[in-house]
C-alpha cells in the first residue's frame, strides 16, 4: 500500500492531545520488600500526554503498538482499518493500509523500516515498504504440520534479524507460528504453551476412555502478545498463571523466571539496552522486571470509572522508549498515553545498568541514593550488599543482604565472617574445650577419692522420686525400648496426662522457636509475623484431634488402648523432635547454605524417629500387629479429616443461619418499626 495521495497535506497535523498535569500519579507504586512482599515506594512513572486523535481522525479501538528504531510509534488503529506512524509528540507522519487492511491488530517495524501488519480478519500478515507499498503478504501456511483445522488469523507479529516471522493467531493455541523469511514456509510452532493439568485432570486422563477425554477439551492457554529484543529473544505473555511471561531462546525454551507476575498479561515491551521487561494486563496493571526476573515496580493504572489521568480501561499495547518512557495504548479509551519515568526511577535504572555491568562499586552511590528515598527497596539493599561484599566489608554486606532478603548473598557473606571468626578464635576455642575436658576428668578423679559430688547426687536422686519428674524421665525410656515403655504406660500407670501435656508443651515450644527464631537463612516465616494463638490452636488442636480419632478408630478395631494411654503414647513419641529441634535451631543460626545437609539430616532423623515411635506406640498400646497399626493410623487420619470437615461445615451452616435470622430481623425492624 502506498501512502495516501494527500499524505503530504496531513503531515504535521497536530493531534488531539491532553496535556500532562504536573506529577500527579493516580496510582500507588509498589516494589518488593525484604520478605518478598510488596512495599509501597515513590512514584516511578508519572502520567504524561494523552493522544486521542492524529490528523483529522480519532483513534478507534486501537489494538497494536510498536516503537521503531527511528523513535516513531506505529499504531494499529484497528477500528479505522489502518496503521499510523506518529511521533511521540503527536505528529502524524504516515498512514499505511487504507482500504487494504481489514482488522489490523499487530504491528512491527524491522531494521529496514518495513512495516509488518497482522491483519486478523484479513487472515494475513501484510508487509509495507517504508514508502507505504505492499511488498509481501503472508497467508495461511499449507504445511501439514500446521494442522488441518488450525486457523490463521494473525493478531500479533514480530520479526527477528534473519527476517523470520513470529505470528500469533486467534484460535490457534499451539504457540507462536514461525514463518521463514524467504518463502514464508511454516517452520513450526515456537515455544508452545503447556496445558494446565491438575491432579484431578491427571486422574481423569488415567481413567477416561478416548471419547470422554475428547470432551475434557484440554487445550493450552493461548498467547496474548509477544515482543522481541535485539538479541532475538522472544517474549510472550498469556493468561496462564505459570506462563504469564516467558522469554524464549532460539530453541523456544523459557529463560526467565519472574519474581512476581501479573495475571492476564495483555502486552509486553522490552527495553533493549538493559533487557528490562514491562508487562501490562488488560486492566492497566503495569509491572517492570529486571532482565534477571526481579521485580522493580508495579502499579495499577486501572480506571475504575473516576477518569483520572494516566489510568486505562483496556490496555492493548505497550512500548518503551530508550529513556524508559512507557507508551500505553488503550483500546476502550482509544488513546495513547505516555508515562514518564521519575527521577527516582531514573536513579534505579542507572544503578541497575552499573549493577548489570558488574560495576558494583560504582553502583553503590546510586543505590545509596535509592535507599535514601526508600530504605525498604530490596534490590537496592542487595546492590549495596554486593558492593560491600566486593570491598570485603562482609558484616556490612550481611546487613544489607538481610534487609534485601537475599539469602544466597547472606550465606556467602556469613560464611566469610564465620571463617574469619574461626581463624581468629579456633585456637582459643580448642584450648577451652581441652581445658573443660581436663576439668571434668579432674573433678571425676577427685570425686572418686573424696565423694565430693555425693550431696548433688542425693539431690538428683530425690528429684527422681517426684512423680511428675519420674514420669518425664520415663518418657525417654520410650526412645530406647518402645515395647517396654508402652507396657509401662498401658499396664503400670507410668504416665499421666500432666507429663504428656508437659511433653506437648515442650514440643510446642520447639515448633514456635524453630518457626520464629531460626537463623535468617533457614527461616521461612516473615519477620514480625507472630501468630502464636494460631500456632497453639494448630499444634494442640491437631494433636487432640488425632488422639481422639485414634481412640475412636482403636475402639472400633478392638484395640486395647485407653484414651489416656494413647494421649501419653503419642505425646511421648514427639520426644525425638523435642530433642533434635533445639539442635537444629542452634545450627540454623550458625550454618550457611554450604552445610545445610546437616540440618536436613537432623530433620530426617528427628521426624523419622517420631514416625517410628508413633507406629510402634499405636501397635503396642493396642496390642496390634504392624499391619493393623498402619491400617489404624490410616483410618485415624481419615477420621480426623472427616471431623475437621464436619466442624467446618457446621461452622459454615451456623454463619449462614445467623445471617438469615439477622437479615430477617433487620428487615422487619427497618421496614415496619424504624
Amino acid at each position, binding site marked *: 500500500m502506498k501512502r495516501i495521495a494527500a499524505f503530504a497535506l496531513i503531515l504535521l497535523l497536530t493531534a488531539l492531545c491532553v*496535556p500532562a498535569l504536573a*506529577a500527579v500519579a493516580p496510582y500507588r507504586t509498589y516494589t518488593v520488600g525484604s520478605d518478598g512482599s510488596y512495599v509501597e515506594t515513590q512514584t516511578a512513572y508519572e502520567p504524561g500526554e494523552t493522544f486521542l486523535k492524529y490528523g483529522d481522525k480519532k483513534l478507534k479501538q486501537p489494538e497494536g503498538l510498536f516503537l521503531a528504531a527511528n523513535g516513531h510509534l506505529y499504531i494499529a488503529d484497528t477500528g479505522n482499518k489502518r496503521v499510523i506512524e506518529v511521533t511521540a509528540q503527536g505528529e502524524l507522519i504516515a498512514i499505511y493500509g487504507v482500504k487494504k487492511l481489514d482488522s489490523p491488530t499487530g504491528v512491527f517495524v524491522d531494521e529496514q523500516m518495513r512495516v509488518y501488519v497482522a491483519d486478523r480478519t484479513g487472515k494475513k500478515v501484510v508487509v509495507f515498504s517504508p514508502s507505504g507499498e505492499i511488498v509481501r503478504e503472508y497467508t495461511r501456511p499449507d504445511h501439514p504440520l500446521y494442522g488441518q483445522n488450525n486457523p490463521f488469523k494473525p493478531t500479533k507479529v514480530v520479526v527477528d534479524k534473519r527476517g523470520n516471522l513470529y505470528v500469533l493467531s486467534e484460535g490457534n493455541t499451539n504457540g507462536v507460528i514461525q514463518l521463514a523469511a524467504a518463502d514464508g514456509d511454516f517452520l513450526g510452532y515456537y515455544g508452545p504453551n503447556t496445558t494446565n493439568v491438575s491432579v484431578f485432570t491427571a486422574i481423569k486422563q488415567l481413567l477416561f476412555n478416548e471419547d470422554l477425554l475428547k470432551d475434557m477439551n484440554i487445550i493450552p492457554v493461548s498467547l496474548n502478545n509477544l515482543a522481541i529484543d535485539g538479541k532475538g529473544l522472544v517474549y510472550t505473555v498469556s493468561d496462564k498463571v505459570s506462563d504469564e511471561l516467558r522469554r524464549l531462546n532460539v530453541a523456544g525454551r523459557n529463560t526467565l523466571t519472574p519474581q512476581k507476575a501479573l495475571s492476564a498479561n495483555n502486552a509486553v515491551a522490552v527495553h533493549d539496552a538493559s533487557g528490562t521487561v514491562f508487562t501490562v494486563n488488560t486492566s492497566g496493571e503495569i509491572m517492570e522486571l529486571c532482565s534477571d526476573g526481579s521485580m522493580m515496580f508495579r502499579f*495499577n493504572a*486501572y480506571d475504575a470509572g473516576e477518569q*483520572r*489521568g494516566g489510568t486505562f480501561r483496556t490496555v492493548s499495547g505497550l512500548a518503551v522508549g530508550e529513556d524508559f518512557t512507557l507508551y500505553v495504548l488503550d483500546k476502550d479509551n482509544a488513546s495513547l498515553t505516555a508515562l514518564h519515568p521519575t527521577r*527516582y526511577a531514573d536513579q534505579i535504572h542507572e544503578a541497575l545498568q552499573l549493577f548489570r555491568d558488574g560495576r558494583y562499586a560504582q553502583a553503590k552511590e546510586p543505590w545509596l541514593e535509592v535507599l535514601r528515598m526508600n*530504605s525498604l527497596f530490596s534490590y537496592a539493599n542487595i546492590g549495596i550488599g554486593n558492593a560491600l561484599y566486593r570491598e570485603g566489608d562482609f558484616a556490612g554486606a550481611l546487613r544489607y543482604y538481610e534487609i534485601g532478603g537475599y539469602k544466597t548473598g547472606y550465606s556467602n557473606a556469613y560464611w566469610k565472617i564465620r571463617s574469619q571468626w574461626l581463624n581468629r578464635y579456633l585456637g582459643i576455642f580448642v584450648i577451652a574445650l581441652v581445658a573443660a575436658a581436663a576439668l571434668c576428668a579432674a573433678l571425676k578423679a577427685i570425686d572418686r577419692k573424696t565423694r565430693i559430688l555425693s550431696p548433688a547426687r542425693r539431690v538428683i536422686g530425690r528429684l527422681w522420686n517426684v512423680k511428675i519428674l519420674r514420669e518425664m524421665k520415663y518418657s525417654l525410656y520410650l526412645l530406647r525400648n518402645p515395647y517396654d515403655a508402652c507396657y509401662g504406660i498401658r499396664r503400670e500407670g507410668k504416665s499421666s496426662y500432666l507429663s504428656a501435656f508437659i511433653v506437648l508443651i515442650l514440643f510446642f515450644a520447639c515448633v514456635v522457636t524453630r518457626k520464629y527464631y531460626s537463623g535468617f537463612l533457614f527461616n521461612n516465616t516473615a519477620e514480625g509475623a*507472630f501468630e502464636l494463638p494460631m500456632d497453639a490452636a494448630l499444634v494442640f488442636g491437631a494433636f487432640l484431634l488425632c488422639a481422639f480419632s485414634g481412640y475412636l478408630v482403636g475402639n472400633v478395631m478392638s484395640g486395647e488402648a485407653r484414651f489416656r494411654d494413647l494421649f501419653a503414647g503419642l505425646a511421648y513419641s514427639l520426644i525425638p523432635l523435642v530433642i533434635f529441634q533445639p539442635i537444629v535451631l542452634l545450627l540454623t543460626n550458625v550454618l550457611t547454605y554450604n552445610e545445610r545437609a546437616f540440618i536436613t539430616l537432623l530433620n530426617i532423623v528427628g521426624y523419622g524417629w517420631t514416625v517410628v515411635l508413633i507406629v510402634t506406640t499405636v501397635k503396642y498400646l493396642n496390642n496390634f500387629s504392624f499391619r493393623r497399626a498402619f491400617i489404624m493410623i490410616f483410618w485415624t487420619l481419615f477420621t480426623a479429616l472427616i471431623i475437621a470437615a464436619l466442624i467446618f461445615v457446621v461452622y459454615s451452616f451456623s454463619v449462614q443461619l445467623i445471617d438469615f435470622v439477622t437479615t430477617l430481623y433487620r428487615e422487619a425492624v*427497618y421496614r415496619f418499626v424504624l
Partner: protein
Amino acid sequence: MLIAVFIGLLAICASGAAAENVPDAYRAAAENSAYTLYLREDTFSIIIESKATGETLWSAVRDESKIKGSDTWKGYFGSGIILEYITGETQSGVQADLINSPHEIAYRYTENGFDADISFTEPGISLTVSIEMDDGGIHVTVPHDSIIETDSAANTLGALILFPFLGNTYLGETAGYMMIPDGQGVLVYLNDKEKRVTTPYVQPVYGNKSGVSPVTIADYSTPIENILMPVYGMVHTDEKIGFLCVIEDGDHAADILVYPNGARTNFNWIAARFTYNMLYKQPLGPSSASVSKRAGARAFDLKLHFLPAEGENAHYAGLASAYRAWLADNGFFKRADASRAYDFRVDFLGLEREKALLGKKDVVMTTFEQAETILNALAEAGVSGLSVGYRGWQTGGITAGLPLSGYTPASSLGGAGALNALRERAEAMGMRFALEADFRSLNLQESPTLNYSCMERITSEEVYETMSGMLYDRMYTLLPEKSLENAKNVVSAARREGMNGLSLAGITSFMTDYKHNGDFYSADTLKASYLALVRSAADQIGVELGAPNAYLWPEGAALYDLPMHGSGFLMEEEEIPFLSIALSGMIPCYSEYMNFQSDSDEWLLRHIEQGIRPSFLLTWADSVHLRNTNSKNMYSTQYTLFDELIADWYARLAEVYKAIEGASILRHDRTGTCTRVRWSNGTTVYINYGDADARIDGFDLPQMSYKVVRADE
C-alpha cells in the same frame, strides 16, 4: 424606606435598560459600583453584567437553540434553582425546577436586591431565596427557617442547587476555565473535550462523609484530595470576566459539581449542591439485601457569596486574591502567627508498635533525647528556623496510643522529663515545639472497652478507616463529645507541663453525619463540635492545624500538611497553587512531607513557586524498623539520610523567602515550562520546570532552576 427602595429600583431599571447584551426578559434587580444584576422573574435566572465592559455571565443557557436533552437537563439549562426532594412513598429522589415543575414565585424587592418566595406545589415545599448586592459581591441566602414542607412525611427537601449554570459555556465556544478546589486547586479549560471526559467531578466539600457513604479506595489508587476550601470559580478569559463563589454557610453539606462538556451535556458548568436530607441503603445483613431509608435532616442557612471579577482580576490568581481578602475580612487569620519568621517543619516519629511472640512490643524510632541531638545538629548546620512537631510521643505510640486521652509521654522515649527538656532546648534555640494530637482516632483493638465511644455510620456499623500494616486493620472514630473531653484533658495537662503548642490532626480533615445509640447526628453537629474543640484548645495553647478544612482556619496559628497537587482527574488540565496564593502572606503554611517524593528538585521548585514551607518526617532509627508496624508506609525517615539536604534547602530557600517575606502573591502565570510569580512587594520569582534552558522576561533560566528578581533590581 419604601420610597427609597422604589427610587433605587427606578435608577437600576434606568441604567439596566441600556444594556445591549441582556434580553428584555431580564430586568435590572440590583447593582454595585462595577456590576449590574439582572433577573428573569419566571425562571429565577440571573445575568451579571460588567458596567465597564458590558460583558456578562448568565445563569441560564444564552442560546436556547442549543438546548437538547431530557426535561431534567432542560431544568438545569434554564432554572435558577434546582430542588431535589425525597418522596416518602417510594423513598426516592425527584427533581423540581422552574421549567418543568408547577410552582409559584413571588418577589419582594429590597434596597439592593430581592427576596424570592418560591413554592413548588407538587411536593409542597417552599423556601425564600434572598439576594443582596454590594460592592463586596452578590450574597445569596436561603434561611433554614424559610424552608417549609407542608407534609414532610410525604415529601421532604433533599438537595438544593442555586444558579447551577452561572457562567455556563457551550463546548469550546468561549475561552476560559473552571476552577475546582481539588487539593491546591486545578483548572478545567472551557475547550471542546470531544467527548473525552464523560464523568463529572462530584466531590463533597471537606472530604468524603464516611459516616454516610464510605468510599473504599482501592489500595492501588492514591486517595482523592479533600476539598479544603469551599469555593469554586469560572473565568471567561477573552471577555475578561469571571466569578468566585464562596460557600459561606452550609459548606459542610455541599458538594462541588463540575460538568465539562461531554459529561452528560455539551455545556460547561460548575455549581454547589446542598444536601438537606439524604437517602441511603440500609443493608440487612452480610448479603446484598437492603432497604432504602431516609437519614435525618441537616439544618443550616445556605449562604453563597459570588465575587465577580473582571479585567486583570478575571484570572485564577485574581480569584485567589479575592478569596484571600474575603478570608481576611471574615477573621480567618485572627490567630495566625503572622510574625513567624521563615522556617521548616520537622516532625519526629517517636514510637510505634509491632507484634512480639507474646503480645506486642514497642518500636522506638526517636527518643526525646535523640530528637534533641538531631535539633542540635541541625542548628549547628545553620538550620535555626524550625517548627518542630512530635508524632507518636504518647504511651503506645502513633497507632497503639490512640485514643489520645491524656498527657502521657512514653517512658520508652524518655518520659515527661525528657520531653520537657527537649521542648525547652528547642525553644531556647528559637524553635517552635508542638506535640501532635489526633483526637479523632480510636484504636479499638487496643482499647476494646471504648466501643461505646465509637461513632457509627447511619447504617449502624462503626465509622472506621482501613489501615494497612501487620498489627491493626482498622482505625475507628471517636464521638465528638469524647474527642472534646480528651482534648480538654490533654490541653490542660500539656499546659501544666509547660507545652506551648499542639499540632491537631484527624479532626481537622474530617466531616460526616453519623449515628450513636440509634440517634442521627448531622454534619452540622460535628462541625460545631469540632469548631468548639479547636477553639477551646486555641484559647489555651498555640494550635497548628494539619490538612485543615477551611472552617477551622480562624483558630490556627499555622497550617501544615497542605496538599501540593490535585487529584489528577482527566478533566483537570492545569494545576494552580490557588490555596497557596490565597494564604500567602497571611498565615504560615507547610506542605506535605518531602520524604516520599520521587523528585526532590521538583519538590523544591514547587515550594519556591508557591511560597509554602517544606516539611520533613525524621527518625533516629532506620525506617526499616517500621516494616512490621502499621507505619510501614513511612519508608524513608532516618535523619542521616536528610540532614545534608535539609541544610542545603534551608540555605537556598532562606534567600528566596527573604525576598518575599510578609508579601502575598498577586499574579501567577505559566509560559511553557516556566512559571512567573509576582509578589505584592514587587518581587518576581521565575521557575523553570523544564529539562531544557529557557528564557523569560529577558532572564535566562537553566533547566530545573529558579530566579528571584527583587523590585529594585
